Structure formats: C-alpha cells, structure tokens
C-alpha cells in the first residue's frame, strides 16, 4: 500500500509540475499584450500619458522582468498562495475573483455530475433486466445524449423560465435580494440553481444509463455469470455481481468527469447567466488576462489530479483485484 501511494504521489507531483508550467506558458503564447489592451480600453486621449501608464502597469504585473524571472516569480508566489492580480478585473487579486466564482461552480457541477451518475447507472441497470424498461429508457437515453446541450438548455429556459415562468432566467440569486443567512435567501438560491442543474443532469444522464445497460448485459452473458447460473445461484446474486463489475469502468468515467467540474460549464453559465468559473476563463482568454487564466487553469489541474487520486483510492476499495495486486499477490 505504501509503495503504491508513493509511486502515485510521485506521478501526481510530476504531472502537477508540468501542468502548472504549461499554465504559465500557454497564456503567454496568446496573441495580444494585456497592458496595451487595458490601456486602449481606458481610452486615454493623450499619447504622452500612455508611456508612464504602460510602465506603471507592467511594473505592477511584473511583466517588465526577464521571462525566466517571471517564471521563477510565478512559482514563488504560487507556493506562497499568491495567484497575482487580475488584469481584466484590475485590481482584484485572482484568488478573490476565483473564490467568489468557485462556490457557484461546485454547487452546480458536483451534484449534477454525481446525481446523474448515480441515477444513470441505476436506470441503466434496471433497463438491462426489464424488457419494457429497456424499450423506454434506452430510446429516451439516446435522445438525451444526442441532444445538443445548448439547445436543451435554451429550451429549458424558454419553456420553464420564460413561458411557464416557474423559474428565473438569470442570476445566481434574485437581483432584488441581498445575500443573507435566511431560509428565504437559501430557497431563492435553490430556485435559481435548479434549471442549470437540471440541464446538466439531464444531458449526462443518458450516457451513463446507456453505458451501464450495455455493461450489465455484457456481464450477464459472461462465463462467470453462466457458471453461477448453472450452479443454481439466485438471479439476484448474479445481477449483483454483474452490477459490481459493470460499475468499474463507470467509476473511471466518473473520475474523468469530476476532473472537469472545476472548469465549470461555460455554456450553462452563459445560457442561464449563472455565475461561475467558466465565464471567467472565457473572459480571461479574451482579455489576455494571464494571471486570472493561470489561476483558473490551476484549479482545473488541481481538480483533475484530486479527482483522479480519489478514484485511485476508491478503486482500492471497490476492486479487490487492485488490493491483491498491492499486497504483492499475483492476480
């Protein structure tokens, strides 16, 4: 177990180093000088005033230093927990900007991904053993999976928001509300959260269900299932084994999905005008905001790594073969 963890930890540390370096590098390869863009946006009328302003901002952002030094400084401030100052949202520190967006992103994406995974697997497993369910769940799942997300989301906003008026069409909470620790505010948060959540839930539900159904059918036809059946084991027991085996690839799929959580769902945020990280990343790219982009991508990297690590651990629990492998036995 210890060597397993040590090996994993080394791999993760290396991945982290490379990914963080790329985070620093990629924004700087984009066309466009952020300071120049910032100053053009300010609409200064006198070119004479521009020189000092450029100097001032480049100094603030540390862009007047040699590149290698910028890179070292980046690691230095990163390790001390400083992500720098956003260029687009000057002078907000990047960590503040991200901290304001992350709760919305997490509260939206985590439940959507986890619940759709749970519900999808459950539906898929049921569908695999009931003909009539298979005939309804499967086509419905195909339909949901094939639906372009954008279209589904707009349809939801239009149908349940604009036409029926049951749900708000924009915002993280009502624009007429002030955040307070009250039930009414909490309910309002939920009210605004529901439609974006539903859209994400629905669109990933189908994929999980189809995957699970196929896996179960495959498992039920495998040798061990037939053998168990020949031994006269109850159908219920066989299905349970099939389900457990079918779950393994689904867990890997979940790990990959969870990694994307922190990046947020750009389209969701745009369609529902919902606050979150995705929109920040888009704006950071458009404004050549190196620091905000670095910070947001760092969260994505950390998210992917943590999710993978957790799943690695979960595997040890759910797949006995991994455990025996760890203990040095041959599988």
């Amino acid at each position, binding site marked *: 177990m210890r060597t397993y963890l040590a090996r994993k930890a080394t791999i993760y540390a290396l991945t982290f180093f490379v990914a963080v370096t790329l985070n620093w590098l990629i924004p700087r390869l984009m066309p466009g000088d952020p300071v120049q863009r910032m100053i053009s946006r*300010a*609409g200064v009328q*006198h070119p004479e005033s521009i020189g000092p302003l450029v100097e*001032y901002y480049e100094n603030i952002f540390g862009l007047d230093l040699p590149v290698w030094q910028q890179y070292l400084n980046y690691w230095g401030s990163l390790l001390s927990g400083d992500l720098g100052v956003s260029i687009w949202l000057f002078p907000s520190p990047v960590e503040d900007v991200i901290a304001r967006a992350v709760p919305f992103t997490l509260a939206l994406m985590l439940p959507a991904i986890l619940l759709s995974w749970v519900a999808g697997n459950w539906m898929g497993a049921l569908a695999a053993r009931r003909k009539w369910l298979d005939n309804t769940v499967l086509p419905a799942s195909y339909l949901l999976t094939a639906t372009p997300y954008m279209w589904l989301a707009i349809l939801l906003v239009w149908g349940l928001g604009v036409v029926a008026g049951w749900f708000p069409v924009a915002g993280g909470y009502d624009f*007429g*509300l002030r955040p307070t620790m*009250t039930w009414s505010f909490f309910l309002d948060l939920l009210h605004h959260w529901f439609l974006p959540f539903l859209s994400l839930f629905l669109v990933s539900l189908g994929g999980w269900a189809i995957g699970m159904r196929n896996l179960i059918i495959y498992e039920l036809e495998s040798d061990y299932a037939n053998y168990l059946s020949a031994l006269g084991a109850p159908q219920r027991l066989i299905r349970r084994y099939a*389900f457990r085996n079918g779950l393994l690839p689904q867990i890997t799929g979940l790990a990959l999905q969870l990694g994307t959580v922190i990046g947020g769902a750009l389209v969701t945020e745009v369609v529902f005008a919902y*606050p979150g990280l995705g929109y*920040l990343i888009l704006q950071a790219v458009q404004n050549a905001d190196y620091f905000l982009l670095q910070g947001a991508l760092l969260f994505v990297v950390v998210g992917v790594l943590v999710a993978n690590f957790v799943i690695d651990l979960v595997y040890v629990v759910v797949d006995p073969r991994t455990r025996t492998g760890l203990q040095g036995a041959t599988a």
Partner: protein
Amino acid sequence: MSLHRRRWPLVAAATTAALIALAACSADPIDQEPTDDVEGLDEAAALVSEYPREETIFTSGSQWGPPSSWNPIPQSGEATGVRGLLYEPLFSFDPATLELEPWLAESGEWTDADTYVLKLREGLTWQDGEALDAQDVVFTVELGKVPDVRWSNMWTWLASATATDATTVTFEFSDPRYQEWDNFLYTNSVLPQHVMSTWAATDYNSNANEDPVGSGAFTYSTHGQDRMVWERNDDWWGKDALGLEFPMRYIVDIVNPSNEVALGLLLQGGLDLSNNFLPGIQTLVENDQVQTFYPEAPFMLSANTAVLVPNTLRAPMDDAEFRRAMAFAIDVDKIVANAYGGLVQKANPTGLLPAYESLYDDGVISEHGFEYDADEAASILADAGYADTDGDGFVETPAGEPIELELIVPAGWTDWMEASRVIAEDLQAAGINVTADFPDSGAVDDARSSGDFDLLINNWAGLSNTPWTYYNYLFHQPVRDLQLVGNFGRAADAGAWTLVEQLSRTASDSPEYAQIMGQLQELSLTQMPMVPLWYNGLWAQYNTSTWENWPTDGGDSQAYPSTWGGFWQMGGLRTLAALQPAG
C-alpha cells in the same frame, strides 16, 4: 445495489456543504458594510434582505465582469456608476445644447485669457460628513502631477491651481486649451483629499477603493459577482442645490448577460433600463413591448462614429484619391438596413455626431462631401490611374501592382461582421479587391496599435463636449510605434494637426472657432484619413412597467439615457432623476 445507498448520503453531504459555502460566501458583503455610523441606521439597512420593486431600478449594459474597483482615478474598469452616482464632476454636460451645466461648481469663468476662476457651491459635503471644498478640487487637479495619473498631460499647459478661499479655485494656464479644459471639467470627478491623500503614490491606479466615500447621490450598498447595488444618499447636497430628487432608493446594475438573457429580463420586467446592444429590438419597439428614445428608426441617439480606417502606410491606401473612391463605393444605407435593421443612422460625411450638427459646414460638405455613388467611385479611380490591366475584374495600382486588401473586425461582433461583409461586397463591385476577415478581438487590437493591417473598423470617436476629441482622434500627430488613441491609419500630417491644436486653444464662442471647424472638415474630406460610416447608437431600451417618464424624442425628459462610464454626467443622472413610479 448496496453501493448506491452508501453513495447517497455522500452526495447529499457534498451538496449541502457546497451550498452552505456558497451562502456563506455570498453573504460576505454584508460584513463589509461600514458600521461606524449613528443610531443603528446602517444595521437597519443591512437587515433589508430584499429591495422593494417599487423603490428599485434594475439596469444593465455597462459592466462586463464582476465589479472589482470603485476607484475613479483610472477612469476605466470601475464598477458602474462610480463616476456619476458616487463621485461627481464639477460640471455636467448636456449633449443636446453642447453646454456645460454647473454641478459641484456654482460657476466658472475665464477672467482673462490665461485665468479661470471656479466657484464651488456652498455646503457641499462628502458622504462621511466632511466638507467638500476648494482644497479637494486643488488636490484632484494636482494629482495629475503624478506621471501615471491619466490627466498628467494637463500640467504641460496648466501652470497652477490655487484655492483662494473655501469655495474658490483660481487656475493659471501657461497655454490655455479651452476645449480640453471644458472636457476636464465634466469628465473628471472631484476626489476626497481627506481619503486619497493617505494613499501611496504608486497606489492611485491600483487601489480598489473598497468602502468608497463619494459626494454623490448614491452610496455603495453591496456587490456580487453578477451585480452592483447602490443605495440613495438621503443627505445628498444636490437635493436643494440642484433640485434633483431621485425617486428610486436602490440601483441594481446587472453584469451584462448574453443578449437572450438581457432581452428575457427586459421583457419580464426584471430590467428597467438596458444599455445593451440588442439586435432586433426594433420589432419589440414597434409592438410597444419596450420603449426607446425614438419610436421609429433610428430608435437610438448616436453615441459614436464608426469609421473605416485605411492603413495609409500601405499602397494604395497612401493615396487620398483612392481613399475617397472607397468612401463613394460603400453603400452605408445597406449596412444600416442589413446589419442593424435600422437601429443606427448613416454618418454625416464629416463624421461629426448629430450632436454637433450646428457645427457642420454645409459649404464644405456640399463641395467635398460624399455619398454612395458607384459611378463616381469608378471615375475617381480611373482619374487617379487605377485600372483593371490584367482583366481579373479588380483594379491595379497606377504602377500596375495588383491590389488585394483585407478588412478585419473582431470575431463575434456580429453587427460589425455583417457590416464588413457589405463593405467588402461593395468595394469588390467597385473593382477594389477587399475581403472581410474576422480574427480574435485581441489580434485586432494588436494589429490596430502596431499598424499591421490593411483596413479595419473602429468607433472610438465618442460623444464629448467638443469636436476636438474627434479631430484629435482623426489626425493625431506624431505617429508612434504604438498608436493607441487615434490616427490608427498612421496618416502623415497634411496640415490638420496644427489646426487641431489650434481648435483646442479656441473658445467655442470665438469667431475663429467656426472657421477652424470648416478647415478641419474640409481636410477630413479631402484627405479622408478615415471614412465615416455610421453612428453607433447610444443603446437604451426601457421597460415602462415599474418606472415611466423615460427620455424620448419630444418627451418631458430628453436626457441621454445611459449608464455607461462617462455618460452619467452626460444624461444618465438626469434620466434617473426624471423617472416616476408607473401606475
């Protein structure tokens, strides 16, 4: 199946934890409320959990990201309303009359050619109770002595600013630039010396100024990732002095959502004033679902001039005749109809906004002006020696070189993309081989400032008190490595720049003023450094269900209805003050 049951509580716990974190996080701004006020008034305010609809106006259109700064010094990137609702200028500007109107100032006049005496109103106060006096004005102006404060340029023509008593400031000029001075008087906010003098000199641009202390009619209430909330300052000095009473207690400005969402909010009554560009809004105006300044085309007032910028360092755009031929070859009416559905209007050949109509030199325009005329374009080209010598349908330069030009506008700017397709089509029809291309907006920015382009569209010539800003944009000299404020086509000086500088030094009521304006209009038409196309609108659409008496043509209120930065003192404040509860 047992795995399921084990997972549910985990999911529920994660959801709850995230939601609580979310609630806790968004509740933060309340803790930041200033609490050092009297008699628990602020605690009472903090208890307001909901803004009553009939006391609140919802606006949108000026803010593109989460509010991050309440600092008026950089004059960009600040939260909606910082310059206007919170900080105030000495004068306001009425684009309808082109006159400055006293705001914090009671009066201001030139006592001689080099001396300007400014008189402040009596009894002005900051929101924390400190008096706003002549010292604050002097502090504001002298801040320009710091090189990276954006009005630092002023100290090349201003000699001194002296507070002669509590409400009087005397300005001595070494080189009086009347037009620029007027511009300063209404665009720059007066800053609180007692607060900002404690800031470090390197902090003037980078201080976020949380807990701001202004002098204006509204105070900072709270903000979130997608909104900025202002609350009325009931002790505002202007209630008596200006006779302005704001009927709304709260202003909630919503960070620009997508067009669909903005439209949805507007139609549902969740937005009262939208300063977003909403393509197709004209049909909703015609159905009486929303209101705009004009009930019919062009629906909107004009805010700035969109111009076609040819790079004059590249042949054949270095030839004024070629540039003029392009002006005649473009059918702007088609752009107005196709790209905008009538939401904008065609620009005057001089490019001067309709607000400056009284300054149009009709003689010059009738002699040198242009309008869409394909035959005229063809004959200008032919006369200047451009002919299709290789028979490919496009003209070559007089030297026989093929012409192949690219017009760039940022990808995603759908109206401009459509407009540039029309332009390319028209120019091709006239025999000029132009294709439209849509790079990323950052790449367009780079191309524009470094001069690495053939043709592009730009609209930074905005409304101001003086056409000097437009000509400064058109003709600015000298050309630098990076052109960030104007003359993006890098045109060499053909005598216009001296006139521009002269214009800045000429008072609007002096007889030379009209004469210089005439000469500049003539030069802009004969040299054609940029081709004026259309006037971008001061996008403003109103929902009248909660508030009425919005500015309309010929209506009771005719202010320029905008919440954009720099527009509050040009009409935004008067728009809000004139509103009345509907019903």
